[in-house]
């Protein structure tokens, strides 16, 4: 195996064939974002660690289902991570822990060590979120980082359902266009 700069899509193809060395590299490439994202949504460090581990093993287990024609390796892995985190949140949505999480935090500023190599990612995302209207940015953040459904976002923001659907889509499209330009 080569170093960490290897193409993640090719690595996943190797992982699908049971290549452990390739999986180690995939782990090193994605453990930070997977854990960070899950923790962003779940907040609780112990639960986040458990879910992040499940996600990374899921990557190992289902690598044969990754299809590069349908998206990047990062999108595939991080979609699994977000889905798992959200499933966990919604499974316990009635619990007290959920109530304590109502306000999502900022994109950065957690008490955990941020990774140096993602500093640029964070700056770009923060800058591009700034291009959105406040309602768009808030809706996108509540939905993605908060793990809320769009009807929940509508309720939290006191805005009609139809408005939120549109704001989330418009905001995400604007974010996409901005990130494409700056990356």
């Amino acid at each position, binding site marked *: 195996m080569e170093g960490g700069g290897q193409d993640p899509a090719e690595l996943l193809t190797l992982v699908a064939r049971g290549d452990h060395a390739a999986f180690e590299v995939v782990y090193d490439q994605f453990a930070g974002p997977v854990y960070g994202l899950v923790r962003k949504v779940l907040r609780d460090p112990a639960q986040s660690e458990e879910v992040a581990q499940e996600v990374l093993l899921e990557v190992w287990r289902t690598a044969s289902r990754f299809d590069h024609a349908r998206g*990047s390796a990062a999108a595939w892995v991080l979609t699994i991570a977000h*889905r798992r985190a959200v499933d966990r949140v919604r499974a316990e949505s009635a619990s007290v822990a959920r109530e304590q999480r109502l306000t999502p935090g900022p994109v950065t500023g957690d008490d955990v060590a*941020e*990774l140096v190599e993602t500093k640029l990612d964070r700056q770009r995302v923060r800058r591009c979120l700034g291009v959105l209207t406040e309602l768009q940015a808030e809706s996108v953040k509540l939905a993605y980082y908060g793990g809320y459904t769009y009807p929940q976002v509508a309720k939290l923001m006191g805005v009609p359902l139809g408005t939120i659907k549109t704001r989330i889509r418009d905001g995400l499209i604007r974010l996409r266009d901005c990130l494409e330009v700056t990356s």
Partner: protein
Amino acid sequence: MRAQRHELHLLTGSYALDALPDDERADFEKHLARCPACAEEVRGLRETAARLARATAVAPPPGMRARVLAAAPRTRQLPPMSRNQLARAGRRTGLRRISPSRAGLTAGVLALAAAVAFLLVTQLSTNSRLQQAQAANHQIAAVLGAPDARIESVPVTTGGTVTAVTSLRQEEAVVTTADLPSLSGARVYQLWVMTSSGAARSAGLLTITGGGSTTPVLADGVQPGDQLGITVEPAGGTAQPTTTPVVTVPVTA
């Protein structure tokens, strides 16, 4: 709260962020299979969501690496999908839905297994039927006991509910119903495996028992992207559905 078709396209953003409630998510995935423009937009927005994810990266806890890397060799990997499955999957942009709580799933499967056993026992009269039923029971038990078994209950438009337990690994589903309205003598409920391309294959007739349930029916060759559908047909059933399904249950990966 269900969206009209012309509004469905607006849901690409919420879908890409996993922000659709489950029922709307299922509707939207059906729509995606027929809307290449939506699928393409979702694909792009998922990449944008991944950028949002990357911005949250933090150092994982120490020890996690060793645990994950040690667990991998003990974890069996999924085989590649067949060409047929890949073609179907290509039309879906959603990723596999993770089953909710394992405990809830198991409870559902156990409840259904108990119902199946009860139905089989109450219907038996002769030895040959007993043997047939045991063979069917064995296959059904294999689906219910499959590690990847997933249970889904969906209300039927005309009343009652349908429950399907699906094992994609075995490509089989067990379908039962409760409280379907009874039909006049000349009509029956028929179960179909319907592919996303519109083809339908009969999986058999659903026989209503005294208790208001139907005999469990095993559908084979079930693939992600298919739907299990029930139609009302003339007695004896038909080769192809002749009426609109009263219910469909999506088979998701």
